[in-house]
């Protein structure tokens, strides 16, 4: 049953998650440039504000004041719809991610999560799959060969890698037995028992998932949809102004969501080592109430999850400025002949280990 305080709380959380996603995406543009610069022995943006921290603001002003360009022969409605769709789908998927454990005020218990649904993982997969429409529609509506080629590449790449990604996920679901992200998170740390994060049980599955996440978010080394050496700018060749900005933004929001999903599925989400011992210590030795100790643990866990997410975002960028882009046939071969068989093997392996009682 959804009651009024819960509904109000959910709207607040969703608004906050929305804002935080956008803020992180904004500062991802800055972080990307600084990390790229450091990896290449350069300085990076340092002119706008202290340490260049106002750079995203300057970029936004620049993007907003650019000319709105519509190519001749473009389908105007679809041309506008493309980036909107990309942005909407990117933002929607973060609604079900459990960012923290429960927080209790008096008798009201609140989840640090937008919506708790028992099909959270399916929701994310469904929405992320819709994201390819933003790219496809934008590329097709541009009336440009390069855009269309980029869009086709994006479509086939996303479909190919979603298969391996889904199968890597199935192995996780076999262990957890639930699609709810909160359940999956809680299972990775149960009070009083010695539990491992899923990365220990699913190392191969994690690597497959990670590679597919790179492909799904169109990041290097799988950024063929916007491969500038071959396709000018790929699907967003004809885009300018904030429509272009929305495409770039949606990529960073996708990176954020992918990092969050990987943290939740494989790295224990908002759990951190010895959290229950810490809570009990506060209750027993310091004389705290159980609720306030739990609230503290939840807040620390929230920060911990964001730490994991930032580590993953850094990893995304680190990879981007290290590896060159794959060729398109290499990309397809990797997806279909290596990752999918590996994922199937991983499912069989997991099933065998569960039957043998080695992992549960």
């Amino acid at each position, binding site marked *: 049953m959804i009651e009024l305080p819960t509904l109000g709380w959910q709207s607040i959380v969703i608004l906050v998650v929305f804002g935080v996603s956008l803020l992180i995406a904004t500062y991802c543009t800055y972080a990307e440039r600084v990390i790229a610069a450091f*990896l290449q*022995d350069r300085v990076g943006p340092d002119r706008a504000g202290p340490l260049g921290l106002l750079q995203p603001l300057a970029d936004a002003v620049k993007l907003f004041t650019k000319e709105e360009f519509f190519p001749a022969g473009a389908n105007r409605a679809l041309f506008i719809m493309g980036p909107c769709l990309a942005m909407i789908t990117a933002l929607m998927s973060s609604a079900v991610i459990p960012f923290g454990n429960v927080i209790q005020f008096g008798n009201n218990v609140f989840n640090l999560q937008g919506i708790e649904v028992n099909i959270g993982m399916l929701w994310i997969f469904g929405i992320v799959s819709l994201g390819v429409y933003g790219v496809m529609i934008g590329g097709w509506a541009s009336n440009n060969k390069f855009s269309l080629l980029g869009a086709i590449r994006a479509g086939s790449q996303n479909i190919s890698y979603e298969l391996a990604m889904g199968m890597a996920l199935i192995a996780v679901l076999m262990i957890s037995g639930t699609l709810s992200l909160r359940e999956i998170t809680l299972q990775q740390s149960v009070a009083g028992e010695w539990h491992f994060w899923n990365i220990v049980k699913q190392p191969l599955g994690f690597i497959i998932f990670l590679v597919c996440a790179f492909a799904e978010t169109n990041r290097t080394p799988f950024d063929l949809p916007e491969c500038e050496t071959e396709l000018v700018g790929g699907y967003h060749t004809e885009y300018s102004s904030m429509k272009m900005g929305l495409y770039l933004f949606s990529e960073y929001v996708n990176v954020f969501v992918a990092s969050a999903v990987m943290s939740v599925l494989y790295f224990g989400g908002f759990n951190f080592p010895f959290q229950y011992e810490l809570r009990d210590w506060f209750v027993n030795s310091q004389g705290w109430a159980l609720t306030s100790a739990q609230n503290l643990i939840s807040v620390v866990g929230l920060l911990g999850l964001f730490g994991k997410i930032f580590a993953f975002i850094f990893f995304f960028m680190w990879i981007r400025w*290290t590896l060159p882009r794959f060729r398109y046939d290499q990309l397809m071969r990797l997806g279909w002949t290596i990752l999918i068989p590996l994922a199937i093997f991983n499912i069989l392996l997991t099933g065998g280990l569960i039957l043998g009682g080695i992992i549960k």
Partner: protein
Amino acid sequence: MQSLSNRAKKLEVKPMTLAERAYLPAIFQGLSITMRHFFRAATKKQITIRYPEEQRPFSPIFRGLHVLKRDEAGRERCTACGLCAVACPAEAITMVAGERKKGEEGLYREEKYAVSYEINMLRCIFCGLCEEACPKAAVYLQADKMAPPRFERDEFIYGKDRLVEPTAPDARSARGIQLTPEQAAALAQRMAQQSA
């Protein structure tokens, strides 16, 4: 084809090993290389020179923007003999000579002086031959100042207002016209020769 020099090396294309085909070891190697660069950039001093705040030091023999020197009494040294204009391979220097009137002894060192003296910085190749040709040690190329970029061509024609060394030492430093130690030593030496 047979090798003539016997230096040709036979290249063998070996099939890739499993580690090479798996990509991952090579990826980790690349990641470690970039991470080393990341920490070097984050911890050590960066090699980048942030231009407007930091400037690369000029070479001590750098030949930059010209200056028309004054003598120790503040009088213009130039006597408008035209030797610099003759020496100039780019024909960047023009001048008009005039005779010093009574009461102007504090302004000009010699009886003849340059009424106007212009150097076209777009023509000038900064070879320093004018400096070598000058018998009065009047024209010098500063070692620490360049002709700044401008929007208009005529702004590159420097007249006496911008060439002559200012009288007040403060004004001199504000305009950045100063001699390097080497130039100061050379000037002192030439002045000593002249008085001898």
